[in-house]
């Protein structure tokens, strides 16, 4: 028998599980291939439909066990990366309206700041997870139903042989009666800055709170409400997404320390690769089918959140380090 006091080392051999990657900020071990596959799948979908995919990425991360707070903060940088390559693509084609971007950003930056502040406040009150889930239910079921319905109607019309006309009438709505008008040369529109700033504000706010780029709401709003021509709408929205998401990443990193760079890097790698294949696949499917599919997908995620809120959770108690605010 060895003398007591002598250092007796009896370590159990650590299991060599290299596929398990430890996420430093999320504080959970994850399967690296699962996260890569999720990034690629969301990238595929986003390339297929021409959207950022944050509204799918954040929920998926929450479903695999990453806390909503870390998911939201980390996905912001992932969206920034994917919208960056998109923005470069449209910049080369001169399909970006710089002035429109600037005005949108005035609202976008303020909205993001407000969003991160709200996020921090809700987190200390212990209601962040609830608010994220509720926002997803409302936004996703709403958008999902609208998209599915729209796609279905277009498909039925096509089946009946009616030509689908792009609705871009020249009729003026109340928005065009607002003051502070400005000429946006590249988009060839003459528009009040008020609705533009408000749109930027709303997108920036929900982007920071929910971890989405907001492209899937921003593009329809810009087309139908602000009457921005299709030639500049995608590029402009991509630049807005890029800047607000970069800003959100910074704010989340400085105030809440919740951005998981390792997680973000895996998502980016999977995402940009998946997007390329998605874009190719998207060209082979008809537009109305695509919209119906996307609508169904969005709806499904929304319903999943709703179910989780309504059924009694297995565990009613939660522990979090820190002081209650």
């Amino acid at each position, binding site marked *: 028998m060895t003398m*007591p*006091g*002598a*250092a*007796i*080392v*009896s*370590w*159990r051999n*650590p*299991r060599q599980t*290299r596929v*398990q990657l*430890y*996420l*430093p*900020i999320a504080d959970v071990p994850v399967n690296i291939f699962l996260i890569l596959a999720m990034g690629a799948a969301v990238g595929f979908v986003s390339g297929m439909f021409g959207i950022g995919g944050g509204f799918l990425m954040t929920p998926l991360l929450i479903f695999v066990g990453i806390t909503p707070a870390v998911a939201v903060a980390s996905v912001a*940088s992932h969206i*920034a*990366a*994917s*919208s*960056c*390559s*998109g*923005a*470069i*693509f449209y910049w*080369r084609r001169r399909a970006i309206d710089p002035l429109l971007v600037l005005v949108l950003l005035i609202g976008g930056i303020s909205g993001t700041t407000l969003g991160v502040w709200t996020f921090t406040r809700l987190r200390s009150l*212990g209601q962040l*997870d*609830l608010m994220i889930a509720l926002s997803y239910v409302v936004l996703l079921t709403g958008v999902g139903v609208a998209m599915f319905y729209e796609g279905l109607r277009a498909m039925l019309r096509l089946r009946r042989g009616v030509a689908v006309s792009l609705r871009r009438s020249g009729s003026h709505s109340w928005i065009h009666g607002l003051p502070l008008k400005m000429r946006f040369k590249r988009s060839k529109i003459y528009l009040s800055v008020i609705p533009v700033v408000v749109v930027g504000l709303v997108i920036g706010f929900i982007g920071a709170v929910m971890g989405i780029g907001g492209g899937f709401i921003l593009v329809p709003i810009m087309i139908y409400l602000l009457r921005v021509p299709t030639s500049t709408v995608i590029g402009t929205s991509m630049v807005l997404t890029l800047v607000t998401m970069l800003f959100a*990443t*910074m704010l989340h*990193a*400085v*105030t809440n*320390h919740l*951005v998981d*760079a*390792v997680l973000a*890097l895996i998502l*980016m*790698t999977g995402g*940009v690769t998946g*997007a390329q294949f998605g874009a190719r696949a998207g060209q082979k499917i008809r537009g109305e089918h695509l919209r119906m599919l996307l609508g169904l997908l969005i709806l499904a995620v929304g319903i999943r959140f709703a179910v989780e*809120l*309504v*059924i009694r*959770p297995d*565990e*009613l*108690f*939660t*522990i*979090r*380090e*820190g*002081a*209650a605010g």
Partner: protein
Amino acid sequence: MIARRALIAIAALLIAGAATAARAERLIVSVSNHRVTVTPNYSGEELVLFGAVEKDASAPAAHTAYDLVVTVTGPRADMVTRRKERRFGIWINADYRQFVQVPTYLAIFSNRPFDAIGSPDMQRRQQLGLNNVLLTQRVGPDYADVVPNDAFRSAFIRLRTEEGLYREATSAVTFLTPTLFRTSIPLPAEVPIGTYNVEIKLFSEGSLAAHTETAFEIVKVGFEQFVATSARQNGLIYGLATVCMALMSGWAASIVFRKD
């Protein structure tokens, strides 16, 4: 560093020995490692604590059967426990309790059930078992521990136990000989970094006979820990680095997959 730590440990043992010199029993203990390094592929390990009971001539002859309780306390932190309630048809966080400076890791090991070691009163005084350990709560302006069956307190202990961070085992300490003992301290992958205090209490016939302390340190190394530390301490630089990473990978993707 390690050498200095060992010296401190030896000094501590000597002081502890001197303080209890008048007593009949003396405890000599050591842990297998005073500095546990957690690497990225760490999946939980065990630390071994060895010790011996030294008796001098003044020890009562009746003192032959000893009981031993080992308490490992990790770094302390404030924690909030919240309870979900059904409001407006959905489950939301409603009530909460603030736990003030409670251990992030806590393990209480003994060689026999606590009831066999001493009276309930003594168990409470010596904080034997998770039910008797002091967990201060702040209720409004007051600071107090509550009854062991309090809903928040028991939920807190249950959740920490499920994570493997709070443990209680009444057969974990083994006496190899009547005076030589050992126990292993399991450290799961989620262990918080910091200094861990190990308190060893020797009981004989229902009362405390000797008492000593030792400590070990848990450090995390590797890329992941570097990331976690910089995120917490240099938020601005970390944020800038993440932003640059996003821009770089976006730019790289547009080069690699350039369509025109």
